[in-house]
């Protein structure tokens, strides 16, 4: 006689240690096998887009910080670029350099959290804290610059809120020298660990075609083996002045586009960001950072869309202006939300532990998913 069996529905989250916030996953399980995954969103929804319509353009910036709160500088840059495009503002050279330095530091900080928490999801606790030690140094640099460690309100439309601290350049150079060996340390401790490779290689393989169909962007897309980075492919700010490479997933330990590839793309990206920061710190000109700040941000009527390469992927803002002080409509194209859509596809037929690994490897921030 066959035993009567049934599938178990497991609610993972919204309070769960590794759903990276308040994501709720509905897993259909057959023993340890996952048959189906359905993400449920909205626990962190705070009406960002609607809220923007009631605020003036500069007032939106602090709220933009709270989208991807691990990469607030990058969000600010995207929003500022969008508004500047709408108003046709040319920002001074020094502002561009400072912005690039900040955004690349932010990319390293964001990737450190992504890599550390990914390790934590796999069960390695120590690399997580090592990553956070380094991230703290970056946050201290930000604190020196603008007084805040997480939500900065530093990059303004047409410039910056204020200039760098006199010590910043020296400290940033020190940080670059300090951080370089730490990437190798992370590789030795985690990336090339046999158990880590076993857990991540050939797990959650995202084929290139599926990645493009799902509109995946950022390291998750590059992990699938395509060189697509807006800093190179659609240069904004002054990225065309710097010499850096775009890492792609090569399928070192398994198929192209597995969790390990997505993970390792981030590791190499940190090294490339260090290269950009080094060049920018050498070339940074003198100048006034507030000279192009408009007295009143009142863009002409029209629509605008601008996008940048955020740590998590392609962040875009679509703004409709009716010529008043408030935006008529702000629409965000958030990378985390778009990347999350592929989760159900990736998780079919894997183990429970793999769901955690896959979720960690696509690196989402709930603040951006729910807005």
């Amino acid at each position, binding site marked *: 006689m066959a035993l009567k069996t049934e599938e178990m529905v497991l609610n993972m989250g919204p309070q*769960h240690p590794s759903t990276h916030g308040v994501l709720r996953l509905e897993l259909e399980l057959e023993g340890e096998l996952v048959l189906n995954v359905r993400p449920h969103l909205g626990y962190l929804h705070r009406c960002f887009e609607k809220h923007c319509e009631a605020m003036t353009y500069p007032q939106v910036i602090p709220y933009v910080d709270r989208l991807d709160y691990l990469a607030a500088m990058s969000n600010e840059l995207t929003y500022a670029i969008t508004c500047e495009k709408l108003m046709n503002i040319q920002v001074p050279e020094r502002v561009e350099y400072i912005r690039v330095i900040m955004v690349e530091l932010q990319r390293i900080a964001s990737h450190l959290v992504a890599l550390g928490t990914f390790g934590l999801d796999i069960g390695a606790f120590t690399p997580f804290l090592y990553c956070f030690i380094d991230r703290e140094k970056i946050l201290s640099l930000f604190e020196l610059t603008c007084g805040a460690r997480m939500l900065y309100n530093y990059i303004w439309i047409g410039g910056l809120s204020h200039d760098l601290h006199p010590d910043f350049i020296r400290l940033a150079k020190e940080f670059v020298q300090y951080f370089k060996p730490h990437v190798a340390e992370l590789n030795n401790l985690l990336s090339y660990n046999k158990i880590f490779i076993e857990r991540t290689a050939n797990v959650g393989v995202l084929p290139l075609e599926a990645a493009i169909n799902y509109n995946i962007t950022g390291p998750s897309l590059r992990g699938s083996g395509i060189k697509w980075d807006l800093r190179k492919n659609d240069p904004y700010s002054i990225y065309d002045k710097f010499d850096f490479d775009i890492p792609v997933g090569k399928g070192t330990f398994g198929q192209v586009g597995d969790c390990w590839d997505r993970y390792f793309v981030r590791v190499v990206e940190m090294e490339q960001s260090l290269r950009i920061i080094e060049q920018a710190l050498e070339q940074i000109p003198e100048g006034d950072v507030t000279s192009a700040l408009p007295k009143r941000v009142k863009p002409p009527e029209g629509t605008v869309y601008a996008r940048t390469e955020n740590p998590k992927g392609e962040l875009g803002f679509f703004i409709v202006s009716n010529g008043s002080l408030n935006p008529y409509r702000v629409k965000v194209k958030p990378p985390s939300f778009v990347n999350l859509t592929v989760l159900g596809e990736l998780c079919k037929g894997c183990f429970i*532990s793999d769901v955690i690994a896959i979720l960690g490897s696509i690196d989402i921030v709930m603040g951006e998913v729910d807005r």
Partner: protein
Amino acid sequence: MIFDWLSSLIGNEIIAGIICACLPLFLFILPFALVAVLMERKVSAHMQDRLGPMRTGYHGIIQTIADILKLFQKEDIMSNEVDKPLFNIAPVLTFIGSYAAFAAIPFTSNFIGTKLDLGIVYILGVSSFGVVSILMAGWSSNNKYSLLGAMRSAAQLVSYEIPTFLVVVTLITVTGTTSLLNLSEMQTGHFWNWMILGGPGLNLTKFLLIPFMIVGAVIVFISTLAEVNRTPFDVPEADSELVAGYYTEYSGMKFAMFFLAEYANMFAVSAIVSALFFGGYQSPFGYLGNLLGVSWLVPFEQLFWFTLKGCLFVFVQMWLRWTLPRLRVDQLMTLCWKYLIPFAFANLLIVGLLVVL
């Protein structure tokens, strides 16, 4: 022997036996669990560039006592849906299982809970108690995470007992004894008499045995690591997947019992590994007491070496925990059935041949 001394003092062998068997618990395991929890926190902290507990006492040495006091005061939360009898028995059973193993572990040549001739077999038997209690805890909690954790744990513990037992059988063929006391007695003298270096005596067989003994020690260490659910084999309580595995629903003192049992278990398996391969309570360099002619010093030295070796292996377990990621449940099974068990079998066959020849 402590047992003889106690029975002559009390005049009743049964009561003396009970007291004798309880002594390790109160003299050793409970204090050890306190020390081990603090040790874990300090070891992990220093590995991670932190300080760990610093405020309670000098460098936080009374932190664990404060934690236990806190757990005593905690409300014992129990959901309405739990299977109450099983839910209440499970932590006690875990505790019994891990404690009962200590009854047959020789702490010194004079101090052993009960002088069982089948010591090692008994230990392997009672440590299987853990499976039952974990399944009980997981099932009675009426929680899906607990159930998944319990299922994983049962599969894991049952599988990993096999390589352990195969290696133990290997040792039995070499030494011809199943009593840990006799086994430890055999490894007396200096460290070259330890089983990892082929055991006592000086002949060709001893040198031929060395590589196989090392393989056996590695296998038994890995599989005991899996039996106590430590990283990289902590899938049953994988905190990033199953919240806390089979003890997700427990709180207060019941949780503390699981917790203490885990640390007691860690020491138990360390003691077993050291008794099997590393001379148990024997000193690696001979005894100061024998040198000075002070015979009462010898047992204390033995206790010192026993604790030191045990703590050393516990430290290695912690070291691994804070360095390695976690295996997936199928990889865990692969490791056991495809690698450890064949190797243990081959080891057993070769060692058997060597001994016969």
